[in-house]
């Protein structure tokens, strides 16, 4: 399992000069804010919109062909609600791209900063800009 994860991380992670990330709930301790990872062809299992953190569960096929279940933590539901994000954002079975900061623990866990929907729109979970960037813009 560990080596499978390691292979997947090697494939998925790239360095990113993200600059300072504002801390919330000690997030800088859990997640490596200096690293960004992109997980493509992620198949949605569930989206739970709650406080203090919402959660997307999805699976991704590893390099060995086995599927790994990932958990992506993101903003609180109250923050997402103010951005106009609701439970119709994704459905089970949707194929999406998840972008975020990996967990320092090495587990299949990340802080989701962006999500690319099946229609190509990008959801921006953090920052003060628009919540949705339309595909192609």
């Amino acid at each position: 399992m560990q080596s499978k994860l390691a292979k997947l991380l090697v494939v998925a992670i790239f360095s990113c000069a993200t600059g300072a990330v504002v801390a919330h709930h000690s997030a800088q301790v859990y997640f490596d804010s200096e690293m960004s990872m992109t997980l493509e062809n992620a198949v949605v299992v569930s989206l739970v919109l709650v406080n203090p953190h919402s959660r997307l569960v999805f699976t991704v096929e590893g390099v060995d062909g086995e599927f790994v279940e990932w958990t992506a933590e993101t903003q609180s539901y109250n923050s997402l609600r103010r951005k106009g994000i609701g439970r119709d954002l994704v459905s089970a079975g949707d194929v999406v791209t998840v972008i975020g900061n990996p967990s320092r623990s090495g587990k299949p866990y990340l802080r989701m900063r962006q999500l690319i929907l099946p229609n190509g729109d990008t959801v921006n979970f953090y920052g003060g800009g628009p919540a949705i960037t339309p595909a192609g813009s």
Partner: protein
Amino acid sequence: MKTKMMLTFATAISALMLSTAGFSGDAAKSELSGIWDMSQFGRNGHPRNPKLTDVGQARFDDFSPDKDPNLKCVMPGVPLGVYDPYPLEIIEQDHQVVFLYEHFHMVRRIFLDGREADADVPPTLVGFSVGHWEGDTLVVKTTNMQENLMWNNGRPFSGSEDTYMIEHYRREGDLLVFDATVYDSENYEEPYRITGQRQFNPEGEIFEYECYAEYGGVE
């Protein structure tokens, strides 16, 4: 059924009294009433490098995320909750100013009627707050705060018996300008000063903030 109806009626009367009482004071005292957003002003209202005592430094070094009360769905209390990213609704009454924080449904009552803390009551998360007006500025003194965090990056608050906090809240146009100075000599060499602003949002809403500890993210 009868009891339930009476309770509902009592609740409605209480809500009506709460919503109208703020308008019975003089004009200067009603300046703070309303919903105030924080989000667009960021969160960096804490000092960058506060001077910790040896005791405070040891507590800071000992911090780990599993000790963050917010992740366990325990409300922040104060001083931690003074600088908070979610909206705050302020309701003014003659005898008190009520701070209704969306985050964790935290409620603070700033008593203006001269009452004093009950010495038999142990320290609490929001402590005991009394206030007075200096012109258009609400000045708040809070005591009886329990051990807590100053900030959820692990900066400690001792909750020692001699700790207290002085806050100022003043309206400047559509801004609520505030500061809080926390006196905690056990953990800090100097008083710890927090500053911030909130934006008036007449269209704002306070949402329910139910919290589920299993979604706190402690791996």
